[in-house]
C-alpha cells in the first residue's frame, strides 16, 4: 500500500510538472519485459515527443483504478488485458496484441467502457480485398472455424457482401480429421485463414498447406508468418504500422476511441514461389498493399 501511494504521488508530481504542455501521459504496460517492448516504447516516445511515454511491467503498475483518468494506458497482450479487466474503473485504455478469439473467450460479446481493443489479426475486409486483388475470379471464400472462432463469420460475411464475395464456412472441430478441410476446398475458390490458434498453428500448418495446394487452392492469411510457410499472401501490421496507427488514435480525445478497431496502417506480404506454382500474378508487396488500401474508407 505505501508503495502504491508513493507511486501515485510521483505520478501526480510528474503531471503537475508537465502542466504547461498540452501533453499526455502514456503508460505502456505489459506482463513481459523484453528489449523488443522497450524498443517499441522508445519508438512511440520518439514519435510523440509532446507526450510522456513510459513503459512499465504490469507488476510495477498501480491498480488501473489508481491511475489518473487523464492518463492513456496502452496495454500489450492478453495478460495485460486481464489485469485491466480486474478493475471496474481505470483510465482510457488501448489494448494491443490481443486477438478477437481471445477477447471473445475473456469478454464474450461485451465491451467495457474506456477500453479499446486493437485487434492483432489482419482486418477481414482487408484480407478479402487482398483475395479479390489476387484472385479476381474467386467468389466463394472458404473459412474454417471451430467453436471459438465461429462468431468471426458474421463480421466476415458483412465484409464480404459489399465485395460480392460469399463466405463458405466449415466447422473443423478436430484438426486431425482432414475431411472437413477437403469438403471445404471442394466448394470454395480459396481458403481464408482466421486467427484461431486451434486451427492455424505449427502443428496443423503442414497438413493445411499441403492439402490446399494439392487441391490447387490458395490460402490467404491468417498472418504474415503463414506466408513464409506457404500461404499465398496476407496483410499484416508491423511495428511501424502499429506506431502510426497508435499515433492517429492518440491524437484523438479518448472519448472518440472506438470500442475495437484494426490498425489503420498495414503492409502485405506475398509468397512469390507459391504464386508462381498457382499461376497467380503477384506484383510487389508495396503495390499490392496500395491496391488493397484503395478500397479502404478514409
Amino acid at each position: 500500500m505505501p508503495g502504491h501511494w508513493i507511486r501515485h504521488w510521483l505520478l501526480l508530481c510528474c503531471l503537475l510538472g508537465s502542466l504547461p504542455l498540452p501533453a499526455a501521459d502514456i503508460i505502456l504496460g505489459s506482463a513481459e519485459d523484453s528489449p523488443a517492448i522497450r524498443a517499441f516504447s522508445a519508438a512511440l516516445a520518439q514519435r510523440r515527443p509532446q507526450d510522456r511515454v513510459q513503459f512499465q511491467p504490469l507488476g510495477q503498475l498501480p491498480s488501473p483504478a489508481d491511475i489518473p483518468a487523464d492518463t492513456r494506458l496502452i496495454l500489450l497482450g492478453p495478460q495485460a488485458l486481464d489485469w485491466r479487466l480486474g478493475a471496474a474503473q481505470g483510465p482510457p485504455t488501448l489494448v494491443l496484441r490481443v486477438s478477437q478469439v481471445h477477447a471473445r473467450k475473456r469478454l464474450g460479446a461485451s465491451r467495457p467502457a474506456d477500453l479499446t481493443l486493437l485487434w492483432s489479426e489482419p482486418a477481414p475486409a482487408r484480407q478479402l480485398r487482398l483475395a479479390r486483388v489476387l484472385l479476381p475470379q474467386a467468389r466463394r471464400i472458404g473459412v474454417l472455424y471451430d467453436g471459438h472462432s465461429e462468431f468471426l463469420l458474421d463480421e466476415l460475411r458483412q465484409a464480404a457482401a459489399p465485395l460480392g464475395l460469399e463466405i463458405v464456412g466449415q466447422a473443423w472441430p478436430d484438426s486431425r480429421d482432414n475431411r472437413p478441410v477437403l469438403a471445404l476446398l471442394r466448394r470454395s475458390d480459396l481458403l481464408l485463414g482466421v486467427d484461431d490458434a486451434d486451427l492455424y498453428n505449427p502443428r496443423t500448418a503442414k497438413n493445411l498447406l499441403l492439402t490446399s495446394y494439392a487441391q490447387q487452392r490458395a490460402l490467404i492469411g491468417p498472418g504474415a508468418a503463414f506466408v513464409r510457410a506457404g500461404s499465398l499472401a496476407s496483410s499484416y501490421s508491423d511495428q511501424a504500422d502499429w506506431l502510426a496507427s497508435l499515433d492517429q488514435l492518440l491524437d484523438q480525445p479518448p472519448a472518440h476511441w472506438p470500442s475495437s478497431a484494426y490498425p489503420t496502417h498495414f503492409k502485405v506480404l506475398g509468397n512469390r514461389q507459391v504464386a508462381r506454382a498457382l499461376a497467380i500474378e503477384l506484383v510487389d508487396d508495396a503495390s499490392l498493399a496500395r491496391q488493397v488500401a484503395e478500397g479502404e474508407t478514409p
Partner: protein
Amino acid sequence: MIFSTRAPLPLALLALLAGGEALGDDLFGNDQALPEVLTATRLKQAPAAVPGSITVLDSALIEASGARDIAELLRLVPGMMVGYRNGNQATANYHGTNVSEARRLQVLIDGRSVYRPGLATVDWSDIPVAIEDIERIEVFRGPNTVSYGANALMGVINILTRTPADSRGTRLKTTQGQRGIHDWYASHGTGWAEGALRLSLSGQQDDGFDHDQFARDYRDSRRLNRFNLAVSQQLDSRHSLDWQLAAKEGSNQRPYGYASLFDEAIADGDDGSDVSARDYAGSLRWSLDLSPAHSLYLQGSAQHWERKQVWRACEAEVAFSPELGQLWDLNPFYVVRFGDYLNQLKSDPANAVLPPGSAQEQALAGAVLAQLAGGASRAVCGDVNQSMRETRYDLELQDTLSLSDDLRLLSGLGYRYDRADSETYFNGALSNQIWRLFGHLEWQLDEHWLLQGGAMLENDQLSGSSLTPRLAVNYLITPRHGLRAVYSEAVRSPDMYENNVDWRYRVRNLQPLAFGQGSATYFARSRGPGNLDQEIMRSRELGYNGAFADAGIGVDIKLFYDEIHSMISEPLRNDRFFPSNANSMRFSGVETQLDWQLSPADRLRLSYAYVDFAASSHLDRRLTARHSGSAGWLRDWGQGWSSALFYYGADQLNGYRFERLDLRLAKRIAIGNAALELAGVLQQRLDDQPLTWPENNYDERHLLYFSAELEF
C-alpha cells in the same frame, strides 16, 4: 528512471528497422515458429509452365464418370486408345501401335511401376488398387524417360491414391448391375498425432462380354478381391515414412485356348483356359527435407505377379512327334507347307505332293507320315501350362535441389531387378538388371522464359545402354498462359518376351500316352532373337496451355510429330515369331482438352485428338483412331442431387467404331454424421459394333448399374 521518455536514438532506429525488416523479431510479428511447408522443392510448375502435356483426372471427374475400371477413365485422356482383348483384358495405348499389346506406356501407382517385367504389358484389371482409393490420375502425354525411366516411350500414367491423412473414417460401398456386376468396397482410415493409415478391401465381379461373333457365349468373366494398406508417418519435422502393402487375387476367364491344327473334329479338352491371377506389392518411401531448398527421397518396392493358367487341351498325337519338332526347329516354313500337304491328302489326295525340301526335311517328313499311318492322328489330351511368375525389386533415390528461386535441379539414380519364371515362356527363369541415372534442370530465365531439360542414362543388362535427352522451352505470356516447344527422345527396351522368349509347351498327363510318353513337348516352339535393340522415339511438340480465370476455362492444345524407329512390331505368338527392329512409325496431329467451370454448379469438359499416322508394319495400323474424344457435363443440382453426362467416341479402333453415352445420377443424403450416396449409371452404346475385336459383343447396347455408398 521510470519517467525516462526518450530512448537513445540508435535503439529507436533499430526498432524501426526491426519493424520493416525482420518480422520474426518484431513485437507484432507472429510468435509462432512455423515450418516452411510449400518450399521450392515441394511446389510444382503451374500448368502453363509444364514442359509437356499433362491431363489430370481429378477425384470429382473420376467419381462423376461412374467408371468401375481405370482403363475406362483413360477415355477422358485425349489421344488415348482404349480397347479390350476380352472382358477382363483392357488395353490402353497412347496414339496407337499394336492392337494386341500395350507395351509402350509407363504406369505407376504412387511411384511404383506396375507394368509386368516378363510380357511388358499392364494387366489393368489385376492392379491391386480400387478406383475408390484413387485421388488423381496424371497422364503425361508424350515420352518422358528422363523422369520416369524406359518404357515411358509414348506416355506415363501416374495413378495417385488418396493419402491416408485424407482417408479418415469409414466407407462402405456396393455396386450391382447388369452383366453380372457385383462390386464392393470397404475402407477405414484413422490417424494419430504423427501419422495416419488407410486399410481398404474391395472386390469386383462381372460377366465380361456376352457373346462372340458366332453368337456363342463368351467366356471372359472375372472375379477378384483386393487388399490395400497405406500408412504415412511423420518421424520428425524433417523425416517421413510412407509405406504400402497391396495384394490382389482373382480369376480371369479365358475361352478354351487351343484349336487343333491336325483334325478339326478333335473335341475341346476343357471348358476354358482361365487364369488365376495374384499380385502382391509392397513399397516404402523415406522422405527427408534437408532444408527448405533441398529434399530427397528413397523409395523401394517389391512386387510379385503370379499368373496360373493350366488347362487340358486335345490334339492329334502327331503334334508331339519328336520328328515333327525337329522339322520345326529346322524350318518352320517347311512345316507349314507340310501341313497344307496333309490337308490336301484328305481333300484331294490325287494331287497332293510332298513339298520339296532338303534331304533332312524330306526324311523327317517321311517319318511323320509314317507315324500318321501308324495311327498318330488319334486324339490325345494333356495339361497345358502357361503360368508365369514375375518379380520386381525397384530402388530409387531422387534429390530435389533449389539452387535459387529460379533454378531447380532434380536428379537421382535407380536400380531395378526384374525376374520372370515360366517353363513355357522362358524354359525356366530369366532376370534382368537395370541401372539408371537422371537429371532434370528447371531454369526460370525471367518472368516469361522457362528452360527445362534433362537426360537419362540407362543400362539394361539384356539390351544395352542408352542416353535419352529432353529439352523444353516455355514462354509464359502471363503466369496463366504459356506456349511450349518440346523435343524429347525416349527408348523402349525390348521386353524379356520379345528378346529372350523360349516358348515351348511341355504337355503333361497325356491320355492316352503320346508315343508311349505321359509328357511330351508340343512340336511348335519359338525363340527370341536375343539381339534386339531398343526402340527409339523422337518426339517434337508445340503446345499452348492457358487458364482464363474469369471465365473458369482451362485449355490445352498440343501439336505433335513423333517418330518411332527400330520398332518391334511383331505380336507375341508361338509360331513363326521372328521379331526384329525393322519397323518404324510416325504420328502427327493435334490434341486439345478444355475444362470449363461454367458456374459453381456446372462443369464442362471436352477432349479431342486428331491423329495422322504412317506405319511400316500393317500390324501397327489398326489401333489409331483418326478422330477420338470425349465430352462431359457435370452438374450439381442442389439438395444433394448431382448428374454427369459423358460422351466418348473414336472413329475406329481395330476397324470398329466406338461411341457411347454415359449418364450418372446421384443423390447424397445426410444421416446424422454419416452420408449415404445412391447413384445409378446408364451406359448407352450409340454404335452397334463389336468392341475392338470381333468376339467382343454385348447382347444389349445399354448397361445399367447402381451403387450405394455409406460414409461415416
